[in-house]
């Protein structure tokens, strides 16, 4: 059920109204839970392989993992630095005008820490990695599946999860972690530069002191965990959609769309979980 049907002309697509909205919503929820169940099972299998085959065939897996780190991390660095500069400008631009009205510019560092370090930094980085490297994952693996390369790996005695998924989990986990650090540092520095250009009476020493006061130990722990989990989630969901079932070539684009939507949902759910940790801590 795609939710759309072809009109008589064949040129236009119209949305078909559901007969019962309760059924419609219920079906969506059941489908969503089913997808979460399948993704959870795939994630557990992948973690099992990661642990049980740790150190196996290092001469093959290490170079692949390194190339994944380069693809998902290093090559995205210019884009992340550009976004960091833009993010600093946007947040400082809006915050300075707001805080100066109430004479509270001394909270600039606190706002930057809360917004960039805790929330926007990790989530924005995850979205960039998803759009640049995650989509490529689904297309590559889906095409490999459709062309029968997975069966070729199986007859060579190579576990496709070990060769294709594990390096991506490692690569994307480390990439999102490292890129988030660069994004945060870039945004904090560019934020101060923009504040300086707007004649905000704030010395670099005060700004750093504000930041240091606003960031607690739990921020570092959560930041590390969150970014690594975001990266692994991107890898697992995109690999699942590329590998888990037999795809035909024409189904690869649809699998990519589903993978992107589900990864965003998974990352947002994880983010919500970490907000709970903040509230408890």
């Amino acid at each position: 059920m795609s939710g759309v049907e072809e009109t008589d002309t064949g040129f236009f697509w119209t949305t078909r109204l559901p007969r019962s909205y309760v059924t419609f919503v219920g079906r969506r929820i059941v489908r969503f839970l089913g997808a979460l169940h399948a993704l959870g099972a795939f994630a557990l299998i992948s973690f099992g392989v990661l642990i049980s085959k740790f150190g196996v065939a290092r001469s093959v897996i290490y170079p692949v993992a390194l190339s994944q780190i380069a693809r998902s991390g290093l090559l995205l660095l210019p884009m992340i630095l550009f976004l960091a500069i833009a993010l600093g400008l946007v947040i400082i631009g809006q915050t300075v005008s707001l805080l100066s009205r109430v004479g509270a510019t001394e909270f600039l560092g606190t706002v930057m820490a809360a917004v960039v370090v805790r929330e926007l930094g990790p989530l924005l980085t995850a979205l960039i990695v998803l759009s640049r490297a995650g989509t490529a994952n689904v297309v590559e693996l889906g095409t490999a599946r459709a062309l029968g390369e997975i069966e070729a790996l199986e007859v060579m005695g190579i576990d496709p999860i070990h060769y294709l998924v594990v390096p991506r989990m490692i690569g994307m986990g480390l990439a999102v972690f490292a890129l988030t650090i660069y994004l945060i540092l870039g945004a904090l520095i560019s934020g101060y530069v923009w504040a300086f250009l707007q004649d905000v009476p704030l010395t670099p020493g005060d700004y750093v002191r504000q930041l240091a006061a606003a960031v607690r130990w739990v921020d570092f722990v959560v930041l590390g965990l969150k970014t690594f989990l975001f990266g692994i989630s991107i890898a697992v969901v995109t690999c699942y959609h590329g590998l888990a079932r037999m795809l035909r070539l024409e189904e690869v684009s649809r699998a990519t769309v589903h993978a992107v939507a589900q990864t965003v949902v998974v990352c947002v759910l994880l983010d919500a979980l970490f907000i709970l940790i903040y509230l408890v801590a």
Partner: protein
Amino acid sequence: MSEQAEVTGVTPTIEMIDATLASLTDATRVIAEEVNWTVMPGDYWVVGGLHGVGKSDFLAAGAGILLPTRGTYRLFGKTIEYGFEQELIETRLRLGVVFDGGRLLNHLTIAENVALPMQYHLACSHDELTARVSELLEAVDLLNLANAFPASISRNRQQRVGLARAMALRPEALLLDGPLTGLDPTDSHWWIEIMDRLAQGHPAMGGRPATLVATAHDFRPWRGHARQFAVLRQKHLRLLRHVGTDTEEHLMREMVSEDFD
């Protein structure tokens, strides 16, 4: 154990007893039923069938990638399951598969494709690996294409690389899917010749005679080369006894006939 194995006391390479086989792409589609097939060490089989009867799926079932939905399948006397446990891998690696079109990994070069199984399973030095890859590519006459990517070479050459990759770990048996499909006489002759050499003992395989199974849609090029023939049609595998002496008309009739008996 099959009758033939019991009589000779030799462990069969592949054994199917009353097996029902499904399609690799559509698990609900049965491609063969009540299959009783035994491949003994040193056999040289050609399994024929028209396009679409499921020869590739049959080969996948022979290799143990696709397990029968009913009946028994054994590889080197051992029951095979899905998975990648060490014991299972060791049994699987005694058999190599050459897929139709090679099914090479498109992100690796030709040399990297051939090196992959050795890199993964053996602890060889870089020099040993390079020497072995060169030996294998030389055996399939493609040493000059070592650094090319699969997409830049023809389908036939990709399948030759697939053969080199399958030979890499010196398996005891090789299964080849449609090696002569769509080839001109020169290339067909090349494949027949290398398979004969493999059956006798190829130097790149340590000189040990290999057990061979190939699929084909025409038996004629294989007469005088292969030793055992079977045809897959009407969802049954029919073993043929006298291909070497049969007329061409009879062989064609075996392939296209709608009557099973």
